[in-house]
């Protein structure tokens, strides 16, 4: 126990050590976190009136980001599945980064839900009268909470075992890894069901939402992880093989293709039948009754995704630099598609046919940026700690001062 506390203490100290780039990055993130916190404090005082949400469009950026990040969290399994099911060992050492990212993403998800609540002080009510299994939101609480615990356990165990110079015993983590694979798919499915289950919102009430969610998550998540791995191998001095990145690239390519295919299926169904259910889709893609708020967004998303897909498929863009571009395009494209493109249009027009558009306010945007910055801060610290531990620079038995060890890690 004492060893463990000492481990945590050393990790804590380690997170304050780095070069000027690290400081700059962390300071920047901290400032954004504080700005977000300040914006949230204002929201607590004045209520959600400081957001762009209305009774007509009652969910906005917060739930959009939540939805997106659930997908990102679920995408960690796309690193795990090849390793533990298909025995692709080039990814083995990278699984931990995926899982750490999942932890950070789930924390962000929970924060986004929290800031969306009108009465966050009553959050505890969920433990006292839990409308399970009727409300999909309770399923989501279980799914997200469970996934967070699973990943914390797996990451914590692997890192701590490395710290103690022990070979991790498969008994203590492999079963959890398999549970986590199923669980990851379930968190995203359950989140999709959150929307799909609402009969009064035809835009959501379609079975294709869940598979589309998964496909886009499995594209955007690994894309984001590819980008972080590129950063890690550049700045944190951790070996990431090109083969691993290529494997991830294949995963992303397939997922993105499926995502685009499902999009085409959905568009055909909606537009060919041309029924009254089309209103929200029409608003999203073409504009409705002179309102076009989301049209530029969705076409930007589709353009970005298409370009990314072309880059992934063309033979002369196989280099990793192009991969980075494609990943950035996908991360942004899918964010728009699942955020502004999935959550908001279902509210426009309202069930009574009223057209009220949604435009986030500055305060709302600051809260979102704050949460994102907090998530990245967490992830940076996780990586900052786990890299020296996994490379054996920070262990229980080292007689080298932590300063030297950590500095060594940076110097790489």
């Amino acid at each position, binding site marked *: 126990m004492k060893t463990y506390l000492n481990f945590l203490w050393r990790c804590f100290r380690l997170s304050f050590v*780095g*070069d*000027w780039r690290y*400081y*700059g990055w962390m*300071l920047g993130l901290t*400032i954004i976190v*504080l*700005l977000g916190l*300040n914006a949230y404090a*204002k929201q607590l*005082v*004045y209520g*959600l*009136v*400081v*957001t*762009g*949400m*209305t*009774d*007509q*469009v009652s969910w906005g950026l917060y739930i959009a980001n939540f939805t997106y990040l659930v997908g990102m969290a679920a995408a960690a399994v796309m690193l795990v599945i090849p390793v533990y099911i298909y025995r692709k060992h080039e990814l083995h050492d990278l699984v931990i980064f995926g899982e750490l990212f999942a932890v950070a993403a789930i924390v962000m998800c929970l924060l986004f839900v929290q800031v969306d609540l009108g009465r966050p002080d009553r959050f505890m009510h969920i433990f006292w009268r839990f409308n399970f299994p009727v409300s999909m939101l309770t399923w989501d609480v279980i799914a997200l909470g469970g996934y967070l615990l699973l990943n914390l356990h797996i990451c914590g165990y692997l890192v701590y075992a490395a710290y103690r110079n022990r070979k991790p015993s498969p008994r203590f983590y492999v079963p959890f890894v398999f549970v986590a694979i199923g669980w990851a798919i379930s968190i995203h499915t359950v989140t999709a069901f959150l929307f799909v289950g609402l009969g009064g919102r035809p835009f959501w009430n379609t079975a294709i939402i869940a598979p589309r969610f998964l496909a886009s998550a499995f594209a955007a998540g690994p894309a984001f992880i590819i980008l972080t791995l590129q950063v890690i191998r550049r700045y944190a001095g951790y070996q990431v093989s090109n083969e691993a990145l290529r494997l991830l690239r294949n995963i992303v390519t397939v997922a993105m293709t499926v995502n685009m295919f499902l999009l085409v299926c959905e568009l055909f169904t909606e537009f060919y039948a041309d029924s009254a259910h089309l209103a929200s889709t029409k608003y999203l893609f073409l504009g409705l009754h*002179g*309102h076009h*708020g989301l049209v530029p967004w969705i076409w930007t998303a589709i353009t970005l995704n298409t370009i990314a897909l072309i880059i992934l498929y063309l033979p002369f863009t196989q280099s990793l630099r192009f991969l980075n571009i494609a990943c950035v395009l996908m991360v942004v494209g899918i964010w728009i598609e699942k955020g502004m493109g999935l959550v908001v249009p279902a509210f426009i027009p309202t069930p009574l046919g009223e*057209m*009220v*558009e*949604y*435009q986030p*306010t*500055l*305060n709302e945007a600051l809260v979102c940026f704050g949460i994102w910055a907090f998530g990245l801060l967490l992830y940076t610290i996780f990586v900052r700690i786990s890299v020296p531990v996994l490379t*054996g*620079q*920070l*262990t229980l038995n*080292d*007689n*080298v001062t932590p*300063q*030297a*060890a950590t*500095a*060594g890690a*940076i*110097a*790489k």
Partner: protein
Amino acid sequence: MGETPKHRDEHDQRSVPAQRSWAAYCIGPVFFALAAWFLWGPAIVELPIESTPKVNAAQLTTAPRREILGNPPTIEIGGFKRTCMDCHQMFPPRDDPPVALAQHKHIVLNHGINKQCRNCHDSKDRNLLVLRGGETITYDQVETLCAKCHGPTFRDWEHGAHGRTNGYWDASRGTVRRLRCTECHDPHNPRVPAMDPLAPLPGPHTLRMGESHAEGESGASHAEHRDPLRRAIHKYIADERKRAESKPEKSEKVEYYKGEDSE
């Protein structure tokens, strides 16, 4: 950690502390500046006030539209209550054909094909109403008279599908007050008059409401205020003022609904 190469330590001592020092000195001041900005910066949130459509109590009356006539109807002349027959017994009824009214000129008769006074009023006893067979009834039985032409409506009224029922739904706990035909309809001009509608809600009630969704305006002007929150509020207040100034006074006069009669 034993295999840590020597050059790393050198690297550490040579570059890292030096790099750290200047970067680290910035952190404190930056945080202080941020704190100052939070406390004295521009982002003070104001909230829209006075967005309520004004309604006066008289417009929300639950009283019947018309007062029901007495039985027999009376009119006050010189401090005394007079019934119809107090005058009409002095003037014997004239026979057909009916002539234009010389008295009671305020009455507008606009009752479809029912254009003759004596379709409803008894020609001999003006304190009574007359049914189509010549049978007379008193004024408190007016529904029976209406029912002679408006049978289905009468039947609906009897069962509560037509007409107002006020007070209590539960007869065991209070009066169920079913309004009678002439409490809503003027028998001479039975169409329900058109009304002045109360104002709609100005818009979705958040800071966004200033940006009229009806016109689909995309955003506010950029220059006035840096803080979009404030900008939205100011715009909202300006719009409200404009709206209040430009809105013409609504006419008070009652118009009669000239649309298709559903009965």
